[in-house]
């Protein structure tokens, strides 16, 4: 392991406290609950054995705290912000994309498509920085302070508040989560608009849509049963795939807004060389991606008969 935290700790004990190697090692293993005399593969097997029982070990930086406890505390916040961002951006994107596909001759269509292309090209951390500058730093003309008190919006919620406070609490978590959510929405909405527009436009040109018109079907019927159902297929897949990146994508944004979610925890674990925590979080992210891919496959099978197995 590069810059093994146990070695670092052992060396530190030896050099600063002047104790023998054996004593230092035994103190370290007691602290980290590691049996350093076991061969690496046996250590790994015992890690896997613990993992199956839901025990991901203990944090190195904060000894005695279990990794699963840390993840359980941080996971909901990330799910909340990234999840809301994904859902809001998808819904807005589908609506705007459909509008721009149907109103291709209107003046506002190039505006929608153009801004979607531009915004989808800006990386999410830049969007986050712009938001901070515009709302939290610049004092706009005629005002004595920035638009929003960005200092007090750090973190996931105001200290001391809990779910028992009801509506105040809900308003508080939205106020704190607002910036990350807006960032996620802006970072993804362009992609959804373009995807939905492209998918709808190409479906509208399909022969079966034209034949449905020739058959005298009502416009509502054509739109719902012939256009929307087919145009939605790539959206559904993309949505399911993106769910997998919900957790992984939050790293930089959470650091930017000092939002204590899983991403920030992972970042801190990397800085502090807290391997068990790192491993635990990466494991959760991996599982999330694997399951959402599986979900994407299942969704596709349900929506598109062409991908189903023949009976």
């Amino acid at each position, binding site marked *: 392991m590069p810059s093994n935290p146990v070695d670092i700790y052992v060396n530190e004990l030896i050099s600063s406290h002047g104790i023998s190697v054996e004593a230092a090692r035994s103190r370290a293993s007691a602290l980290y609950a590691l049996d350093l005399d076991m061969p690496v593969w046996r250590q790994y097997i015992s890690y896997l054995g613990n993992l199956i029982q839901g025990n991901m070990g203990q944090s190195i930086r904060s000894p005695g705290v279990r990794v699963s406890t840390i993840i359980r505390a941080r996971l909901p916040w990330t799910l909340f912000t990234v999840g809301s961002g994904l859902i809001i951006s998808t819904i807005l994107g589908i609506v705007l994309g459909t509008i721009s596909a149907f109103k291709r001759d209107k003046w506002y269509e190039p505006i929608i498509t153009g801004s979607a292309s531009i915004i989808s090209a800006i990386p999410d951390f830049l969007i986050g920085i712009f938001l901070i500058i515009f709302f939290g730093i610049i004092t706009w003309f005629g005002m004595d302070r920035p638009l929003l008190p960005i200092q007090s919006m750090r973190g996931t919620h105001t200290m001391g508040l809990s779910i028992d406070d009801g509506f105040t609490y809900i308003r508080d978590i939205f106020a704190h989560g607002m910036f990350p959510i807006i960032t996620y929405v802006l970072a993804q909405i362009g992609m959804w608009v373009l995807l939905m527009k492209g998918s709808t436009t190409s479906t509208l040109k399909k022969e079966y849509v034209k*034949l449905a018109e020739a*058959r*005298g079907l009502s416009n509502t*019927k054509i739109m719902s*049963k012939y256009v929307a*159902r*087919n145009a939605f297929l790539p959206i559904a897949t993309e949505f399911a795939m993106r769910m997998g990146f919900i957790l992984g994508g939050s790293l930089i944004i959470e650091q930017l807004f000092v939002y204590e979610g899983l991403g920030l925890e992972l970042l801190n674990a990397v800085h502090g060389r807290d391997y068990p925590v790192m491993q635990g979080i990466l494991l959760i992210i991996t599982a999330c991606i694997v399951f959402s891919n599986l979900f994407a496959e299942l969704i596709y099978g349900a929506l598109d008969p062409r991908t189903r197995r023949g009976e």
Partner: protein
Amino acid sequence: MTKAMKKELLKINDLSIAYNTPRGKLHAVRNVNLTVHENEVVALIGESGCGKTTLCLSIVQLDEDNAQLLNGEINYYKDGEVKILTQMSERDIKIIRWQEIALMFQASQSVFNPVIKIKEHFIDTVKAHDNGYSRKAIIDKSKNLLSKMQLDADRVLNSYAHELSGGMKQRALIALSFILDPKIVIFDEPTTALDVLTQRKIIDLLRLIKEEYDFSIIIITHDLAIAAELADKVATMYAGQIVENGKTEDIFYSPSHPYSYGLINAVPKLISDKCEGDLSSIPGSPPDLIDIENKCQFSPRCNFATEECFRDEPTISKVGESHFVACYNYKNVPPIRRDN
């Protein structure tokens, strides 16, 4: 019953349609006159891009967004009443579509919605025109039609489009076109993308169904064999115009327009004692329909062209009973040799 006694069903009067393109107006259909009588099969022949499809799309008012009606009208006669299709509102034309005039597109391989079963297409079609039918009644009628097309009706109805072969899809589509007992069925290239045996089968089935029901057919094709076999009347289109129009036998054995003559001569003959080497063809390519010059459009490719042809566009001459041609030199066009 002689043909003269038959009632007119569809009459296209002096129809001109242009597409607005970045380069200018593309005149896809120019001053077309065509009449379809009850129970008649009319074949439209001509090369790609001569305006056949545009003409048929305009009958049910399904032209592309950039198409523009320049002049003329299309009349449809129903119960002694005239309906001007070119002036109908979107709501009224929806009723005409499929119930009176069914238009089947060229690309029959992708005309079924891939995510719903074939039976849903039948049900949707009927319900769009008359909500009174139960699903079961519609299914029963569909089954009847599908078995007429020699398909396993139950299997086809419960399949998705991708589970059917090309020929099956084409036959299912033909069955679908008869679900509302239309008066006119327009087939745009009904046999392209199908192998020869399947083509044969489709033609036979069309004939069979033609004997059983009363309806007219407009068939667009560049396969002259199909036109010869099915049609009562043939109209040859060139550069957006109908250049010759007449009974099938007249057109096929004594064509009066050099273009019809060329088309018929270009069909390779399998049964021939002596192999004459090269297949005959028509040299050159069709004119640009954006800048139309005042001359016979076919003249640059024509073997019979005279000075006159390059000066002025020819008007329609009457060659025989219901046989019309737009050519100055139609008398010089020889009859087709009947080899076998």
